[in-house]
């Protein structure tokens, strides 16, 4: 309860910060539109030569694209800003101030900064999903939506665990300025269903950098495709990786030696 209040305070301060730069908001909306528009154009080009991509048809691919942007937006609002800030502070030694606060360090390291304008990506992603769902051959059932929401939740948990783990590496390698970038490079593969990739790559994208659980699995649910076995193990994977990431954070933390020592 106390943690929720603290997170709420962080969120409020983020809103106030953002409101101070209202003019930026418009520019950011334009950028988001340009990004999704470009991706949409890319899909159109590919589908001008084919009816389906690895048995995903156009509306289904559109649904996948929507999921891609929803997850990317949530990440950019709630995860990467805080964790990038943490990387910076560990490098500079100012992480001391976090440690002395009477709140679990992992909580504060992952919640204290939000960059709200990326909600435009989430909104656009949702809009794309709705449009895609309307163009599917089969109607989306309530059950589909429920499974989809559960899968989005597991996807976000997995993404969080990955972010936290990447951030934790800073305790070993101090120069980790660009965790965001490492993540984003591989996240790009999530624009396409994991099934289209050749065997070894598919395994890597399922079990090493589990982008399959992040975009493909939720997209399968909302586009009325049959649930694969990945859908059933997704919640278990999510719980395991979140616990593991949290443990890893504590191990890393014990190596923190501030800047002067």
């Amino acid at each position: 309860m106390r943690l929720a209040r603290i997170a709420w305070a962080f969120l409020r301060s983020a809103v106030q910060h953002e409101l101070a730069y209202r003019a930026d908001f418009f520019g950011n909306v334009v950028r988001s539109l340009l990004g999704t528009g470009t991706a949409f154009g890319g899909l159109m080009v590919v589908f001008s030569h084919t009816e389906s991509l690895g048995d995903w048809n156009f509306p289904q691919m559109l649904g996948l694209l929507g999921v891609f942007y929803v997850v990317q937006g949530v990440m950019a609002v709630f995860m990467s800003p805080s964790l990038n800030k943490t990387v910076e502070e560990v490098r500079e030694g100012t992480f001391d101030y976090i440690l002395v606060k009477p709140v679990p360090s992992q909580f504060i390291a992952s919640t204290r900064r939000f960059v709200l304008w990326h909600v435009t990506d989430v909104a656009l992603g949702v809009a794309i999903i709705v449009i895609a769902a309307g163009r599917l051959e089969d109607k989306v059932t309530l059950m589909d939506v429920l499974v989809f929401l559960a899968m989005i939740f597991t996807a976000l948990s997995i993404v969080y665990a990955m972010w936290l783990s990447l951030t934790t590496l800073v305790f070993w390698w101090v120069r980790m300025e660009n965790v965001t970038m490492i993540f984003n490079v591989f996240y790009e593969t999530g624009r396409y269903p994991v099934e289209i990739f050749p065997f070894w790559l598919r395994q890597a994208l399922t079990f090493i950098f589990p982008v399959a659980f992040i975009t493909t699995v939720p997209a399968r649910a909302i586009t009325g495709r049959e649930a694969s076995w990945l859908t059933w193990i997704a919640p278990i994977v999510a719980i395991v990786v979140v616990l593991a990431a949290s443990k890893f954070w504590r191990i890393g933390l014990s190596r923190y030696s501030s800047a002067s020592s």
Partner: protein
Amino acid sequence: MRHILVGFAAFTRSELANLFQYRVMMFLYALWDVVNPIIYLIVWSLVAGERQISGFSRDDFIMYYLVFMVVSHLALAIEVYTFGPLIERGQLSPRLLRPIHPWWHAAAVNISYKVVNLIMLIPVWIGLFLVLRPAFPGDWITVALFLPALAAAIVLSFFIGSLFAMLAFWTTRSFSFWQIWTSLLFLMGGQVAPVAVLPGFVRDVAVALPARYALGFPVEVILGQLDAGELVMGFAMQAGWIALAALAFAFVWRSGIKRYSAVGA
């Protein structure tokens, strides 16, 4: 002229030494140029299957994207990230005092960035070629034509990247404008698909716009799928866009630098 060469060489040496410290980080940046072409290599070889798409077989797509990977790295414009911030933060001032044009330094940074990355990228490229072993559809003539096309793409890309970087003289939002250019490169520069594969009217637009000449054109040249007329036209377009971009570059720099001193930032 001689002092420019000496200065340029000195800049390149110092930038190489400087960037070499960050080679791992830079390699991660360079991974962008590897991962993206691989995605589209896979997408198009899946779409092509056994058939031909606008003259591209599965093997052609594989070859296209492998060469594209190399070209997209070599013809990458980084000036929005390296030069733009200098203007925004007022760090351009000391460079203006040097007896050599600041853009020589920027060009040295550009070249050094790519050279340092090559150390790690060349093994990756060779590895991918060996794994995929696509049949090479070109011949020694297309290889010979590839080199000037590549050089022209690098120069054009540098000028255009610089133009966007110099928008920082007027606006703090130069990144938004830059995104328009990267979108154009993606859709019409040969990234999402070879220009020949783009649907009808989009292809016609792409052939006229500069994006193709700053990125995809050299790849099309080496694959040997352009006939003599298209080749001549392509090189002429490259030359034309370079001339135009160079003119714009000179003009924008001159008016931008006046603003810079006026603001005193």
